[in-house]
């Protein structure tokens, strides 16, 4: 989804640049005010982590493989502002060191992947994981948010490309949204698998309380092994390790709450920036859509400030359900079916991954 140089015109590059700079500036200000000094290195390390995690391949059918994008994963672990900084750092390094993603398209890439993919994905994750409690809820939320953030970012990307006159909206939008509806499933599943793996060792990183002493012992063993492998580098290591062992980790000092010093104010601004962006790049094409979809487009672009609602109507690209004549109705049905499918997948995967005690009783939705 990295847009290279030369695919955006001046007005799109400028507009996305301004929106991305505003979002990143706000996130940096939030972090400077609320992030404790000892968490500052975590931002850089998390960015390096995302970069390294993107190099781990997941085999897909037919010899192809995919990899994690990591927007929702970062946001779930660090909170929206920190995630915005981390993903931006990843994109900047990819742009300057690897020439992946153009430097004039940096604003657009930041807007799509850090603001919509990260913060937008976080909003979906946060709202859903509040609805369903415990690890089970986190995993359902992770799958849906991973999928929604990927699809939304691809739609924004298609809008920017089409708005620049580089490609036609009618060919770009189904191609981008269609492929990313498939890629998004992989992203959601990997995000949930990673969160489940982290919850097994360090549940407090997800804001969950440790289910038993055995888990904490496991964490101790990890810390111990890690300290043993690196203590030769730095004498401070053993000291911090000792200190950490004596002092029990309590939930109030975990990464999430430390990074979540922010309240609703900045989130409203982030939401506003995303809405303005989507209104600029996606909504103008609304008139080109079939009549029945105009309303959906408006809902998608303008009316809803909540990303949760944006995630839900995401219509399937020009899919036609056989036997239904109205194109708009068919598209709406295909979109609804896709959303139901993702929710069902999320539910099943979360059931399979969360321990038996944490599952909701069978048959209750």
């Amino acid at each position: 989804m990295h847009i290279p140089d030369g695919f955006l015109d001046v007005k799109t590059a400028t507009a996305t640049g301004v929106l991305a700079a505003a979002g990143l500036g706000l996130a940096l200000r939030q972090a400077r005010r609320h992030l404790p000094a000892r968490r500052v290195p975590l931002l850089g390390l998390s960015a390096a982590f995302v970069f390294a995690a993107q190099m781990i391949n997941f085999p897909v059918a037919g010899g192809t493989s995919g990899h994690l994008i990591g927007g929702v994963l970062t946001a779930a672990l660090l909170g929206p502002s920190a995630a915005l900084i981390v993903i931006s750092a990843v994109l900047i390094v990819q742009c300057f060191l690897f020439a992946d993603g153009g430097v004039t398209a940096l604003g657009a890439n930041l807007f799509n992947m850090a603001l919509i993919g990260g913060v937008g994905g976080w909003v979906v994750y946060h709202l859903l994981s509040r609805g369903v409690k415990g690890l089970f809820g986190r995993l359902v939320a992770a799958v849906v948010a991973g999928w929604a953030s990927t699809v939304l970012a691809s739609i924004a990307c298609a809008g920017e490309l089409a708005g620049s006159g580089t490609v036609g909206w009618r060919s770009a939008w189904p191609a981008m949204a269609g492929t990313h509806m498939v890629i998004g499933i992989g992203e959601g599943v990997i995000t949930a698998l990673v969160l489940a793996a982290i919850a097994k060792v360090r549940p407090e990183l997800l804001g969950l309380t440790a289910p038993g002493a055995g888990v904490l012992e496991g964490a101790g063993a990890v810390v111990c092994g890690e300290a043993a492998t690196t203590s030769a580098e730095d004498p401070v290591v053993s000291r911090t390790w000792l200190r950490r062992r004596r002092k029990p980790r309590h939930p109030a000092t975990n990464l999430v709450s430390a990074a979540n010093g922010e309240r609703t104010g900045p989130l409203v601004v982030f939401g506003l920036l995303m809405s303005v962006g989507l209104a600029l790049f996606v909504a103008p094409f609304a008139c080109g859509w079939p009549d029945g979809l105009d309303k959906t487009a408006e809902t998608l672009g303008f009316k809803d400030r909540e990303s949760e609602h944006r995630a839900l109507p995401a219509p399937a690209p020009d899919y036609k359900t056989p036997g239904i004549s109205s194109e708009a109705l068919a598209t709406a049905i295909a979109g609804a079916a896709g959303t139901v499918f993702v929710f069902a997948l999320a539910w099943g995967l979360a059931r399979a991954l969360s321990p038996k005690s944490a599952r909701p009783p069978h048959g209750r939705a």
Partner: protein
Amino acid sequence: MQADFLDRHSRLDSPVHRLPAGAKLAAALALVVAAVALPRSQAIWLAALAGPLLAAAAISRVPWGFLARRMLLLEPFVIGVAVLALFAPGGGWAFAFLVARASVCLFAMLLLANTTPFGDLLRVLGRLHVPALLVTTLALMYRYLFVLVDEAQRMKRARTSRTFRPGRSRTWRTSATVIGQLFIRASERAERIYAAMCARGWR
């Protein structure tokens, strides 16, 4: 440890490498902006932009094979987006122009990355009043990128040496566990780094 897979040639010695980082950054950005602003009717000017670039690449002594491999690695992404232009009227010509223009920009950025150490670029950003927190994050990311990639590969090697060709779903679960473990190790490393930074008088 392969600490240099990204910008392997950024520390060579040549007249291009010795130029100040700020000047190179400005030149690369100016060239990219010029290429991007070029209208399709003036496509011939792309050659005029590519000429100095190729000359700079020759002077810099960055191996041509390396640059070519990197370009080949990145071209699929360019072509993947440009293919969408084929469906528009007059698509063939637009496609060729888009690919050529993006390739010139790619080459400029690759040459910048491989003739300028990233630390020097960050120093320029700091002088341009980019927020210190962002520069620190970028610097730490660059510093530990290679450590974490190495760590991930070590975990992967440990896994492959202990497992006997697992199935696909098993691979997904174990790879996800590796990623999860990588984050836990990164967050713990961040705490030790903070302690080390304080010990060395940071802030």
